[in-house]
């Protein structure tokens, strides 16, 4: 049984990583084929660095992800605090279900609905091109918001509501109380919400496809590249992304392990 479990896990992981290995492997191909390996070379990595379209797309992706994450995190955190303080139960469930809509809707429906909105408003304003950076930014904030709210709300429920009141009784203004008492106690939720918003933004293709206009992000560039026969250059771009994700995950994991060790040490001291 134990052996069977090990084999099962191994086989699935192998299938899971096969396309990724193919991608990394062929990014070092000397020829421009993605199916026959002719020899090792770093040619496509050089090509990638020289390709201004790829570099622009990378810049655009990061810019969009940072700006949309900041907006979504601020709006979402404030909204979560507001929703948490709501007394009217009906209103509260109403707001929460509407805010879950972008999460439950298929991406294509969210994308099409936003595109139609922007086209409609654009036509009313008489604009020639209604899509661009601002429309894709609005779209990314919209689909990230529920994830921020859903990450922050549970943390608010775990904090003691009297803490903020105590701070105010001790003379701080509501804003000071929020920044000094409430925010530190929900910070882990805010951070995980922001992280999620960031990764969703970097990875999104479908909704961006409908709301971007001529603004090109990396997934959109990959889409136009895969419409034709692609060169290993795209694999080189993706291998770099793969490497950065791997490093990021390793750092996160190591810090988690360190934290867990620290916690266990504290609990041991506590027991003494």
């Amino acid at each position: 049984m134990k052996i069977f479990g090990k084999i099962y896990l191994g086989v699935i992981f192998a299938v899971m990583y096969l396309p990724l290995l193919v991608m990394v492997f062929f990014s070092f191909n000397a020829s421009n084929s993605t199916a026959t390996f002719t020899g090792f070379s770093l040619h496509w990595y050089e090509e990638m660095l020289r390709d201004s379209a790829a570099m622009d797309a990378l810049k655009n992706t990061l810019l969009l992800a940072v700006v949309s994450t900041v907006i979504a995190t601020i709006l979402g955190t404030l909204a979560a605090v507001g929703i948490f303080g709501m007394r009217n139960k009906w209103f509260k469930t109403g707001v929460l279900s509407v805010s879950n809509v972008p999460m439950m809707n298929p991406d294509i429906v969210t994308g099409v609905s936003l595109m139609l909105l922007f086209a409609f408003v654009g036509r009313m304003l008489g604009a020639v091109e209604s899509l661009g950076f601002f429309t894709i930014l609005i779209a990314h904030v919209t689909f990230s918001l529920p994830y921020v709210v859903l990450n922050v709300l549970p943390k608010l429920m775990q904090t003691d509501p009297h803490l903020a009141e105590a701070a105010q009784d001790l003379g701080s203004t509501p804003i000071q109380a929020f920044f000094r008492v409430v925010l530190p106690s929900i910070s882990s939720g805010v951070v995980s919400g922001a992280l999620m918003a960031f990764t969703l933004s970097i990875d999104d293709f479908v909704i961006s496809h409908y709301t971007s206009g001529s603004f090109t992000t990396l997934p959109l560039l990959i889409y136009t590249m895969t419409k034709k026969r692609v060169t290993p250059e795209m694999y080189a771009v993706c291998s770099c992304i793969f490497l950065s994700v791997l490093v990021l995950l390793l750092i996160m994991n190591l810090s988690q392990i360190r934290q867990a060790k620290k916690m266990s040490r504290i609990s041991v001291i506590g027991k003494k």
Partner: protein
Amino acid sequence: MTDAKMRGVRERKSRTRKKGVSLLLNFPYLIWLSLFVIVPMFIVAAYAFTDASGAFTLDNFRKLSVYRENIFDSFVYALIATAVTLILAYPFAYFMTKRSAAAQRVMMMLVMLPMWMNLLILTYSIMNIIETNGIVNNLLVAMGMEKVQMINTPGAVVFGMVYNYFPYMVLPLYSVLSKIDPALLEAAADLGSGGPSRFRRVILPLSMPGIISGITMVFVPSVSTFYISQKLGGTSVNMIGDVIESLVNRVSTRNLGAMLSLVLMVVILICIMIMNRFSDEEGGIML
């Protein structure tokens, strides 16, 4: 004023202050939600019920029967993909929980890593592996065997869905399975239930919330995909997502595309509601 009265006044004051603050904090969010979530849905509905000139019509819905097959195929492929993913991911998540804590952490990272990779590139890479002159066929020819047609078949599309959404099934399953208290299983064993009955009566009911959320997380993107079917299905598979994608890109057929989006949205919301109902009932039985 007595102490109790004073407390009452203070509480009332803080409550009204809180109410005002909560509304103020929510205000930007509520505006955002109505402008970019509610209004767009109404615009989709408005497009669905009008023709290209903006006059009211039900013609779009009359054309629904033209796309009957695409809708049917999408649901069949997505259902098969979801079932296969569940069957493969359940034992996977279960075996994961049987390993040491350090191994679990590493495996969790390995499951999440592909989620951060773009779906487009993973799908393209699969295409490279299984296409007519792809890696697998090249290997087969090198070994003196005949080529196998894998790409541009429904099977390839289902494989693409299973492959891409597998982590989304594993994560919720793992999170419920790892929380099951081993003492419960011991108790069931002490009370005389064997392996299969322990699974059916203890493990399965306790993992129901994970199964439900895994199913929604795989089914919704599968049923509405257009990239996977384009790359791996070629012309043999034309899903509802492909149809919507080709219709909304042209201004003349935009209304038809809006109608199909509306139908897709309503059908999926109904599916999710039924699923949630189902999981609530399961919870009720559990209690």
